[in-house]
């Protein structure tokens, strides 16, 4: 009887164990043959296909074909862009501040009005008014474009189920392809100039709108849709009179996300240069190591992001229609203020209220780094030499007399493996097969280094994980996708990217998981962490680079920190959310069974939260890949660097190929984690 009952469990264990043993066997085999069969560890150049070249040539041909049309579009777009630019720069700052304050009042009452007022006042005082208006002008033109495209695509996908699959797949890819990779082909099409930033941001900002429109329409109650049908509405009447209005809240969320994406992309597109906008200002001052100024310009961006985010988020919150008179009053006050100060106010570019602050920041950062330079270097070098570097190139190469005080010898390798094997076997005998195999595989990774991992080992490992997570279909997909990277000659760079983002993800997983746990058990902790998380998610990617640069200069460690700062947020949020949403009846049942607080956490809340936590990890991985490319600006190696280089050389082939490789890595990681998450959900019967 008990044998039969146990079968499914042992069967499942066997699946994981079997896969793990295969991976381990391949790993050991690769290590043993490392010397005699060199192509096992390094894919020979002769076996690669010139994919980069082909893509470059093919795309170049297509792009050249449609270039005249696109140049015309570009020419057309210059009118609204110049118009918006002229308009925003000609409106006196005080009046614009009044308008935004009034708008804030209408959207969210006094708090929002105060946010708008103080935010824009800060921008004016910083002296970056004109640069900010250049940025805003781009957003102003790109957002309506993105909204229209997003709305159209969303409706189309909703109306035609056959289109929906295509749209969803495209949106998935667009979300994983790094932002910089968009820019290179656009450069070729539209030439250098702000229109590229405009179009890139419109393309980048349309998908969130489309997704939310589709989601909103799908979520309209079935009976509401049926009631529209039974009332005798034509299809068009149903859509425009009932379904779209009923989906308003979700569509407003889409507008918010669209705005934020557009702003983020406009700022990223500043690397192309040529528009004298605020992103360019950050880049410029960062390159000149004027961190105080970069910090100030970065703050201006943050202020914009916060004001735009909070105001557009207020759109999605239902509220009573507000009295318009205070808004009119606020506006009138600003006009009066403008008239009174007419002639006596300096030009917007000449404000410099915070010049002292910038200098002081420079000064104190300088003082701080001077005073604590040794300590900062110790942190940086410690992390690099004892953590990141061994992970990247393995103990056998990273352990040098210069850093570790001794050289790594083959005998040490042998000892290392012997200890790992003994530990693994010991754990295996206690019945925790998965842990044992993980230990053994980790030993291989640490000894060899992620960047030097033999490709058959990695392909087998990913394939096996996919098989355990979901099945053969996923295995096939993952292996084929990774093999594409292998034969296109981008493998080495991909491994460098994998190593850095992997290290950041692990750090985020541990740190974010602990913070999430802390926020789940302490209300007070969440009260502190929540606004921090909100803020980190609002800030455009670019800005994360400024503080890490200030303290740790250019290099991999700075990039590592920037990635963590950005990617840790979902891990914290999802962990906490998963832990605090345990159904009350489960908690009551556990309490009634006499569980202590810690037992409750480990035995009930954590298992229940696992699928949610895995989704958080999934988001963290995607965030890390997105930031990895931006971090290439401050010196990382790998695919991000290639994409960035391709942009500088307008090399479409390299840009797209490296972007695609990056997307593949993100996609594979995404599918693996999703597979495990849905397995967990199914196991919990959710």
């Amino acid at each position, binding site marked *: 009887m008990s044998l039969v009952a146990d079968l499914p469990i042992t069967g499942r264990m066997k699946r994981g164990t079997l896969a793990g043993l295969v991976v381990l066997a391949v790993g050991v085999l690769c290590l043993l043959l490392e010397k005699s069969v060199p192509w096992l560890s390094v894919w020979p150049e002769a076996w690669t296909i010139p994919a980069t070249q082909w893509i470059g040539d093919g795309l170049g041909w297509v792009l050249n074909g449609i270039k005249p049309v696109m140049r015309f579009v570009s020419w057309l777009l210059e009118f609204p862009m110049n118009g918006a630019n002229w308009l925003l720069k000609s409106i006196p700052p005080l009046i614009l501040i009044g308008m935004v304050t009034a708008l804030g009042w209408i959207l969210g009452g006094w708090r929002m009005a105060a946010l708008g007022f103080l935010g824009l006042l800060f921008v004016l005082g910083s002296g970056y008014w004109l640069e900010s208006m250049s940025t805003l002008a781009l957003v102003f033109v790109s957002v309506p474009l993105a909204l229209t495209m997003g709305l159209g695509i969303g409706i189309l996908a909703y109306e035609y189920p056959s289109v929906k699959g295509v749209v969803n797949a495209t949106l998935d890819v667009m979300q994983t392809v790094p932002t910089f990779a968009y820019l290179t082909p656009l450069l070729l099409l539209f030439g250098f100039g702000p229109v590229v930033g405009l179009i890139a941001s419109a393309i980048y900002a349309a998908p969130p709108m489309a997704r939310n429109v589709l989601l909103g329409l799908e979520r309209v109650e079935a*009976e509401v849709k*049926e*009631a529209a049908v*039974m*009332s*005798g509405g034509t299809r068009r009447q149903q859509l425009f009179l009932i379904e779209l209005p*009923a989906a308003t809240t979700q569509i407003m969320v889409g507008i918010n996300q669209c705005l934020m994406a557009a702003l983020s992309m406009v700022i990223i597109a500043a690397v192309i240069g040529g528009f004298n906008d605020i992103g360019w200002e950050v880049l410029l001052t960062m390159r000149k190591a004027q961190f105080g100024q970069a910090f100030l310009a970065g703050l201006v961006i943050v202020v914009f992001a916060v004001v735009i985010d909070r105001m557009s988020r207020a759109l999605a919150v239902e509220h009573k229609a507000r009295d318009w008179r205070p808004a009119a009053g606020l506006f009138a006050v600003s006009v009066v203020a403008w008239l009174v100060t007419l002639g006596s106010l300096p030009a917007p570019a000449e404000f410099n209220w915070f010049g002292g602050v910038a200098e002081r920041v420079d000064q104190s950062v300088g003082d701080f780094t001077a005073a604590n330079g040794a300590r900062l270097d110790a942190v940086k070098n410690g992390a690099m030499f004892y953590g990141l570097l061994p992970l990247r190139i393995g103990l056998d190469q990273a352990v040098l007399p210069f850093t570790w005080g001794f050289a790594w010898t083959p005998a040490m390798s042998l000892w290392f493996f012997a200890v790992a094997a003994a530990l693994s076997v010991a754990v295996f005998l206690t019945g925790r097969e998965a842990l044992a195999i993980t230990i053994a595989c980790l030993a291989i990774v640490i000894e060899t280094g992620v960047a030097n991992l033999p490709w058959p080992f990695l392909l087998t490992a990913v394939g096996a994980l996919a098989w355990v997570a979901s099945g053969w279909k996923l295995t096939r997909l993952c292996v084929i996708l990774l093999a594409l990277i292998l034969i296109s000659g981008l493998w080495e760079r991909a491994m460098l990217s994998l190593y850095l983002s992997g290290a950041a993800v692990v750090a985020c997983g541990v740190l974010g998981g602990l913070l999430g746990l802390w926020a789940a058990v302490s209300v007070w902790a969440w009260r502190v962490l929540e606004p921090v998380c909100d803020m980190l998610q609002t800030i455009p990617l670019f800005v994360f680079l400024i503080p890490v640069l200030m303290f740790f200069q250019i290099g991999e460690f700075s990039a590592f920190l920037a990635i963590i700062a950005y990617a840790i947020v979902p891990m914290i949020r999802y962990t906490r959310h998963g832990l605090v949403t345990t159904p009350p009846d489960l908690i009551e049942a556990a309490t009634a069974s006499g569980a202590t607080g810690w037992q409750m956490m480990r035995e009930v809340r954590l298992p229940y939260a696992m699928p949610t936590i895995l989704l958080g990890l999934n988001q963290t991985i995607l965030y890390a890949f997105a930031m990895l490319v931006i971090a290439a600006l401050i010196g990382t190696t790998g695919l991000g660097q290639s994409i960035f280089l391709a942009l500088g050389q307008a090399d479409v082939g390299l840009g797209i190929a490296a972007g695609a490789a990056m997307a593949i890595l993100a996609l594979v990681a995404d599918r693996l984690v999703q597979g495990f998450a849905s397995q967990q959900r199914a196991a919990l019967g959710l």
Partner: protein
Amino acid sequence: MTSAVTTRGLWQVFGAGAKAALTRELQRGAASEDVASVLRAEGLIPAVQDASIDVGEGELFVIMGLSGSGKSTMIRSISRLAEPTAGEVIMQGEDLLKASKARMTELRRTKLGMVFQHFGLFPHMTVIDNVAFPLKVRGMGRKERHEKVREIIEMVGLAGREDAYPRQLSGGQKQRVGIARSLAGDCEVWMLDEPFSALDPLIRRQLQDEFLSIQEKLKTTILFITHDIAEALKLADRIAIMRDGRIVQIGTPTEIVLNPVDEYVREFARDVPKGRHMTLAEVMEPLNGAVPTDGPELSTSMSLEDALADCALSMQPMAVKDGDGKVVGLVRPELFARALGAQG
């Protein structure tokens, strides 16, 4: 009584390739049970199988069954909210399933009305705009349509709440809006899909009574879906009982209670207080000689429950009179006991 809505051999099968599979099996001429089991074996879901009903003009026809029995799918097939896989739906000589999209829209505007279990109110519209929506889609001007629906809003007892939004209403009020909206188009066939199931018992009874008085006034043909046997018995002229996609019995409330065709229907009728649905005519004995003269006034159309209240203390046989006051039978206390206890 002429028929207002007729369905013949109505099938609704879900799943990929349902139509082809059903057509193939029907051509083979097998019994519908066998067709259904073949379809199920192929992974398809036969939600409505070979359903034929005949609803008379002005009749209140109730379709009853447990959840998953196919009753909601049935009404959605008739209104073509879900496209049926096979069969006919005849309304005034016209097969709805052959009607074009435009014709269907036209019919929904003028002849069909529907009320939903969870109300299906448009969240962004006020009460009056919700109710007037069927008129709006016909292109009627705002003032005119508001004028026109005021009377209906009054009839369902929502006068004064015209400018409220659905979120500001209670469940009972929401369903009043749903009822008013379905009536705004002057419908001839009124379909109600478990309209009172989402309401609490007190409100449910109140709305049932109001519903009956509206029906008294309008005399429309009604298709009413419910899973509640008591509701079905209270409202229906006739009841169709569905199980696993099939109609297993059609009959008047009394027929359903007294002569269930199978165990399934009997189970339904089990908890029904039979005294309320059985009349003296069904339990009395024929006269055999002496006619008792004293005792309470009993008539053939009285329910057992009412009669019991009148003669609970009597140990003697009592006379039962027909509508004209003529004595036509006898009842004795043990007849009551037997009738009420027989299937209980």
